[in-house]
C-alpha cells in the first residue's frame, strides 16, 4: 500500500500520478478462508478490516454480488450522530461516533468526517418533551446533546425559518455538535483498501447462492457463482438482502426491506452549515462539500427491491424542505436515487450470533446504518472473532423478538395525545 499524503501527492504530480497502485486488486477466491463476510458495504468491509487490523484474523474474504460500496454505503445521506435515547442505542452509536474521529488517519484515507453538528428540530410540545428526555439521558450517558431555543437554532442554521405562524413552527432543537457527515464512498473505499493491505481478499461480482452446513448444523462455507468457498465462520452484512441470505441457511428473519429515496440539488456556494432533521415535518438536509444540498426522503410504503421510488414521495419531501427553508424553492433537484433498507420490528439493528453455529449477522439498520459504520464493523468483527457479542451489541440480539425486550427508539418518540 502506497501511503496517501500531501507529500506523496506532490511527488506523484511530477510523475503523472503513475505511481499509485490499485486500491483493491481483482482476486480469485481461495478454496477456504477463516472468515467470510457476505456483503461489501461499509459495514462488511469494515468488519474485514477490523478482523485483520484489530483481531489478528487476516485470512478473510469479503464476497459481494455487485461492486463494493454499491449498495446503501453509496446511496445514503451520510448523517452521523449518536444522540439516541436508550442506553443500548446510545452506547452503540456513540461507540461508532468515537471511532469516526480519527478514522481518516487510521485508514490513511480521508473519509471527510465533518463534525458540523446535527440539529433536530422540535415543532410541538411533544417534540420538546421527547428531545428533553433524550438530552438528559444523553448527558448522563456522556453523549453530547444540547437544547437550543428557536433563535439559537436560527443562529446555528441561518436558512431556517422560525416564524411563529409557520404550519409547524420551530420551537427549539436538540443539537449534537459531534454529529455531522462523512464522504460515503470514501468510507467503503478506505476500509476496502485498508483491509486488502492487511491480507483480506475482496471478491466482487460474486453472488452467494447458498450456505453449506455440516451434519452438526454449523456452517462449512458458501456456494457462489465462482464455486464453493469454505469457511467456519460467516458474517452476513447484506442490508436489504439479508432475508434472502439468511434463508439460504434455513433461517427466517424478522426483517422487511423498503425503498428509501434520497436526492441532491445542484451545487451552490456554502449556504447550509450543518445537518438538520425534522421528524415532524419529515425533512432531513445537509450540504455536501461539493455544494449540493443532500436531502433524505421518506421510505415508500411497501416492501420492494426495485430501487425505484415514487414521485409523490419526492413531492412531499421537497414541500417539507421548503416549508422549513423557504429560501430553497429556486434550488433545483439534480439527482434522485433509491436504496433498499432492511427494517426490524423495533427498528433497531440485529448484530448477533444466530442459531446456526458459525453464522453471524449484522442487519436491520433501517435508515440509520451509515452513522454506525465503524462501530458496527468493529462489533461484528469482535463477535465473529470471539464467537460472542461485545457488551455493547449484546442487547441487539435475536432473542428480543421472542422475549419482548425490544429496543424501540421510534416508539419512544411516538406521537399521541
Amino acid at each position, binding site marked *: 500500500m502506497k501511503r496517501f499524503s500531501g507529500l506523496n501527492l506532490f511527488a506523484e504530480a511530477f510523475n503523472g500520478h503513475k505511481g499509485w497502485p490499485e486500491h483493491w486488486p481483482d482476486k480469485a477466491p481461495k478454496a477456504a478462508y477463516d472468515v467470510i463476510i457476505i456483503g461489501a458495504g461499509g459495514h462488511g468491509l469494515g468488519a474485514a478490516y477490523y478482523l485483520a487490523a484489530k483481531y489478528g484474523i487476516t485470512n478473510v474474504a469479503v464476497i459481494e454480488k455487485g461492486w463494493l460500496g454499491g449498495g446503501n454505503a453509496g446511496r445514503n445521506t451520510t448523517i452521523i450522530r449518536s444522540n439516541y435515547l436508550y442506553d443500548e442505542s446510545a452506547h452503540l452509536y456513540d461507540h461508532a461516533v468515537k471511532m469516526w474521529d480519527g478514522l481518516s488517519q487510521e485508514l490513511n484515507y480521508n473519509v471527510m468526517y465533518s463534525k458540523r453538528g446535527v440539529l433536530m428540530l422540535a415543532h410541538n410540545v411533544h417534540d420538546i418533551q421527547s428531545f428533553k428526555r433524550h438530552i438528559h439521558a444523553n448527558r448522563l450517558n*456522556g453523549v453530547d446533546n444540547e437544547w437550543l431555543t428557536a433563535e439559537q437554532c436560527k443562529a446555528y442554521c441561518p436558512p431556517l425559518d422560525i416564524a411563529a405562524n409557520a404550519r409547524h413552527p420551530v420551537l427549539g432543537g436538540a443539537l449534537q455538535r459531534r454529529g455531522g457527515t462523512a464522504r460515503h464512498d470514501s468510507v467503503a473505499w478506505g476500509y476496502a483498501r485498508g483491509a486488502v493491505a492487511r491480507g483480506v481478499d475482496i471478491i466482487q461480482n460474486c453472488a452467494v447462492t447458498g450456505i453449506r452446513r455440516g451434519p452438526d448444523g454449523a456452517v462449512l462455507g458458501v456456494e457462489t457463482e465462482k464455486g464453493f468457498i469454505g469457511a467456519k465462520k460467516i458474517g452476513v452484512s447484506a442490508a436489504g438482502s439479508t432475508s434472502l441470505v439468511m434463508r439460504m441457511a434455513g433461517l427466517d428473519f424478522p426483517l422487511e426491506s423498503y425503498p428509501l429515496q434520497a436526492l441532491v440539488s445542484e*451545487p451552490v456556494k456554502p449556504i447550509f452549515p450543518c445537518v438538520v432533521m425534522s421528524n415532524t415535518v419529515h425533512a432531513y438536509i445537509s450540504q455536501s*462539500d461539493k455544494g449540493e444540498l443532500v436531502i433524505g426522503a421518506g421510505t415508500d410504503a411497501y416492501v420492494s427491491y426495485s430501487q425505484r421510488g415514487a414521485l409523490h414521495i419526492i413531492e412531499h419531501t421537497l414541500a417539507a424542505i421548503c416549508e422549513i427553508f423557504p429560501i430553497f424553492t*429556486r*434550488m433545483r433537484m439534480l439527482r*434522485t436515487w433509491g436504496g433498499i433498507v432492511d427494517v426490524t420490528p423495533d427498528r433497531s439493528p440485529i448484530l448477533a450470533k444466530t442459531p446456526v453455529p458459525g453464522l453471524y449477522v449484522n442487519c436491520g439498520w433501517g435508515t440509520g446504518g451509515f452513522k454506525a459504520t465503524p462501530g458496527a464493523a468493529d462489533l461484528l468483527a469482535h463477535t465473529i472473532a470471539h464467537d460472542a457479542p461485545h457488551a455493547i451489541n449484546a442487547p441487539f440480539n435475536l432473542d428480543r423478538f421472542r422475549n419482548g425486550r425490544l429496543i424501540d427508539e421510534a416508539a419512544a418518540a411516538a406521537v399521541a395525545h
Partner: protein
Amino acid sequence: MSGYRLSTGGRIDRSRPLAFSFDGQGYQGFAGDSLASALVASGVTLFGRSFKYHRPRGLVGMGPEEPNALVSVDRGPARITPNLRAPQVALHEGLMAKSQNRWPSLKFDVAALNDVFGALFPAGFYNKTFMWPRSAWEHLYEPVIRQLAGLGDSPVARDPDHYDATYAHCDVLVVGGGMAGIAAALDAAAQGGRVFLIDEQDELGGGALSDLAQWADLNALKDRLAAAANVTVLTRTVAFGYYHQNFIGATQYLTDHLAPAQADGPRERLWRIRAGEVVLAQGAIERPLVFHGNDVPGVMLASAGRTLALRYGVAVGQAVVVMAAHDSGWRDALALAQAGVTVAAIIDVRGVVSADLADAARIAGIAVHIGSAITAVHGRHAVKGVTFAAGGTGRGARLACDAVLMAGGWTPSVHLWSHAKGSLVWNDAWGAYLPGTAIENCRAVGACAGAWDMGTGAITAVLPNRRDVRAQKAFVDFQNDVKARDIHLAVQEGMRSIEHIKRYTTNGMATDQGKTSNLNGLQIASAALGRPVAEIGLTTFRPPYSPQTFGALMGHHKDALFQPVRKSPIDDWAREQRAVFENVSNWRRARYFPVGGEDMEAAVLRECAAVRNAVGMFDASTLGKIEVVGPDAAEFLNRMYTNPWKGLAPGRCRYGLLLREDGFIMDDGVSARMADDRFHLTTTTGGAARVLGMMEDYLQTEWADLDVWLTSTTEQWAVIAVQGPRARDVIAPLVSGIDLSAEAFPHMAVREGTIAGVPTRLFRVSFTGELGFEINVPASAGRAVWEAIHTAGHAFGIVPYGTETMHVLRAEKGFIIVGQDTDGTMTPFDMGLDWAVGKKKPDFVGKRSLARPDMSAPGRKQFIGLLTEDAQELLEEGAQVVADPDLPIPMPMIGHVTSSYRSAALGRTVALAVIADGRARIGQTIFVPMPGKVIRATVTEPMFYDAQGSRLNA
C-alpha cells in the same frame, strides 16, 4: 453582418430588439433569442468557470446538455435562480444574468490558481490528503474546499411566487416535439384518443428548427396539430421522470420567458401525467471530441454552431474550423457555409470520408483535411487558432480561427426510456446504447430510437492527439473538469466498475448529468480496461432528466397550503379570546387563555383553580370518536380492548385500554354504550386514525364474520367538557330531557337529550377529578352551544381552559396521557392499569404478548408519582431519574419524568414518572441530576388529589 449576428436568417424577430445585461454589462438581442445566442451574437465567448479548476469556459451546446454556460438569472432579490443554462434561458426585455463560480470577476478569477496546480488535484485527490494535522480538516481544508466548490449562489430570501400542480390523463403521451414526435402525435390523434405532446423548447420543431430545409414541412405539421382538437401541446415543458405504469412527471415553465412585470400567475406547473402509451421522441445529443484543448471557449458542438446560425442567425465565429469524426459535422459545416458563415476548414480524424461530402465541401470552398486531428487549441478566453496534424502526430500546421466545432457523433437520449426500466442495447454504428425491449407500454421513435439519419461516423474515444494521455488536458466532463487522464488514473487505481469510475472521477455527475460525457467516459474506460464497452455496462439513469426546481415539485403545498391545519368548531371563539394555541398531531388546540398580561404559568394556575373551586369549560372536540354499530358490537370491542365490554349496560361508560398486538399500550379513551348494538367510542386526538385503521384491519381481515361496522364520528361531534363543582349548576338550565341528579345520572353514564335546544349525547365523565360532563353536540352547533354555556356559566365564575390546564388537572389525579406518560414500550401493568385488564378474558389484542418473559420481568419501569423535597422545585419533563447521583458518567438511569406541573390545588409541584420497579420504591428518595444540581424527590402513588374520588362522584 453586425458583430456575429448574420444579416438574415434565423427565427428571431429583428424588429423587436431586447435589452439585457450579463455581469452588469448591457447588451442587445432580439425576440426569439436565447441568452446564449444573444451573447454569442454580441461577441461574448467567456461564459463561466469550471467547477474544480476554475478554467475559463465558453458555450458547448445549445440545449440541456450545456455543461459550461451556467448563469444566475435575477428576477428580483427573492427570485434568483442559479445554475441556469444560457442556451435554455429565453431572452426578455431587461433580463439580468450573471456568471458564477468566479471571484472577483469572470475574466480574472483568483481560484484559477487551482488550474495552475491542477496536477496536484487529479481524480480522488481529496481521499489522499488533508489528513494532517487531524483537526485541520474541519477548520481549514474543508471550509476552503467548500468555498471553492459550488456553482451559483442559493437565493437567500423567501420566494414570493407560487407554483401549480396538476394531474392529467391521456391515451398517448409524446415526449419530444421534433419532427418524429409531431408525426407520432398526429398518428395518435388520428386514432381519436386524448393525446399530449410535450416539448422543452419555446417552440415545437426540435432539430428541424436548425434545418432550413425542414421548415416548410414543420409548418405544415404544426398546422395539422393545431387543427387536431384532441391534442394538447405543452411547450416549455420538461418531462423529467418516467415512473411506474406510464406515470410521467413534467415541469411547465409558465413565466420565466416573460419580463417580470408581465409575469402573472404561478411560475411553474408540475404535470403528473398518466398515459396509456408513451412515445419517446427525445432526439439525440451530439458528443464532443476528447482532445487536448477542447475546453477553450469557442470550442463547441457542431450542432450548437448550426443552431446558432440557422435558428438564431448568429455566426459562431468569423472563421470556423470543424473537427469531425462524423458525417453530421460535414453537413453542419455545409449548412453554416450556406448561411453565410466562413468555414475555414474541416478536419476529420477518419481516413476516409464519403465522396459526396468531400465534393460538397470542395464546392463550398471549404478546406478539407482527412485523417487529421487538432493537436492544440490556441487562446485562453477565446479560440485564436488551432494546430492540426495528419494522424494527430508531429508538429502539424497552425490555422487561425475563432471557433472550433466538434462533431463526435450522437448519443440517443434514452433517459426516460431507462427510468422506465426499458432495456438498452449497444449499437456499434451509433457507438451508443439504443432502446431495446420496453417494460411499460412505451416505444421510442426518431433519433432517440436510433431511427433517424444522422449520417455515419467513427465513434471513437481514442484521442485524436497521439501524445501520452497524461500530458493532455483533454476534457471529458467539462463542468466537473474530468479529463481523459483522470479516467485512466481511476482504472490504474483499481476502479473497474463504471460506477466506481464515475464516483471516483465524478464523470457525469455534474448538473448536466453526463449528457455529453457519459459515453465518452465509457469509451475511454473501455480502452483503459481493455474490454469492450458493452461488457462494462452503463451507469443508471435516474430522474430527473434535467434539474427541476424544488418549487415545481412542491406544487400546491407552499406556505398556507403546506398542510391543512385542522381546527375544531370552537376554534374561532378561542382565537377571538386570544387563546394561545399548540399543535397536537394535525390539529391546533387552545393551550391556555391568558387574561391581561398573564404568562402561561399564571394563566394555568388561575384556570386550574377555577375548575377545582368553581367550574371551567374545555373544548375536547378533537378527541377521536368512532361509532360502533351492529349486533356484534360488544363482542368486537371485547376482542379489541383489554377489559370486558359485553356486560356494559346501555347508558353506561367505560374506560377502554387498547394494546397493539405486541402488548404495548396504543391508545385509550372512555366509551359509552348507547344501545345494545351501538357504542360511542373515544380515542386520543392523535390516535384517532390509527385506532380506526387497526380496528378495521381486525374486523375485515380476522373477524369478517362479525356483524358490526365502524364509522368515524370525530368531526360529527363538537365536545364541550364542563368540569368543576358547579358544572351541574351551569348546564342544568340549558338541558332538557335528562335528569341530571347524581342518583339518576351517575359518574360514567351517558344520556341523550337536548342542550340549548340542540340534540346532545351528554356524558358524565371526568378527566379532571371533578364533577364533570362532556357534552357532545353536532359540530355545526358546537360554537352556539359553547357560547350558551359560557353565558350561563358567567354567574358561577366559569372560565375556559386549555390543554395545559387539562394536563395539570388529570396529572393531579394520576390519569395517564398515552404518548406522554407512555411511550410505546409500556404495558398496562407498567402503568398500574391492571384493573383495566380483564383477567378472565381468554383473549384480546395484545394479551398473548403480555405473557412473554420480558413483559413481566423484574426491573420494568412502572408509573409512579414524584414529589420534590423542595415543594416549589419544578422537575423538567424528560429529566432522568437515578438511584445514586454520585456514580460516574455513564450514570445508571432508572427512569424519567413524564409529566410535571405546578399544582394550584396543592400549592406545590407534582410530577409523574416511570422508573424501574417504581412501585417498590414508593416512599423512597430518588434523584434527578440536572446540570449544576441534583434534585431530590420522594416516590409516591401517582395520585395527588382526592384519592377517594368523592368530588368526581358528587
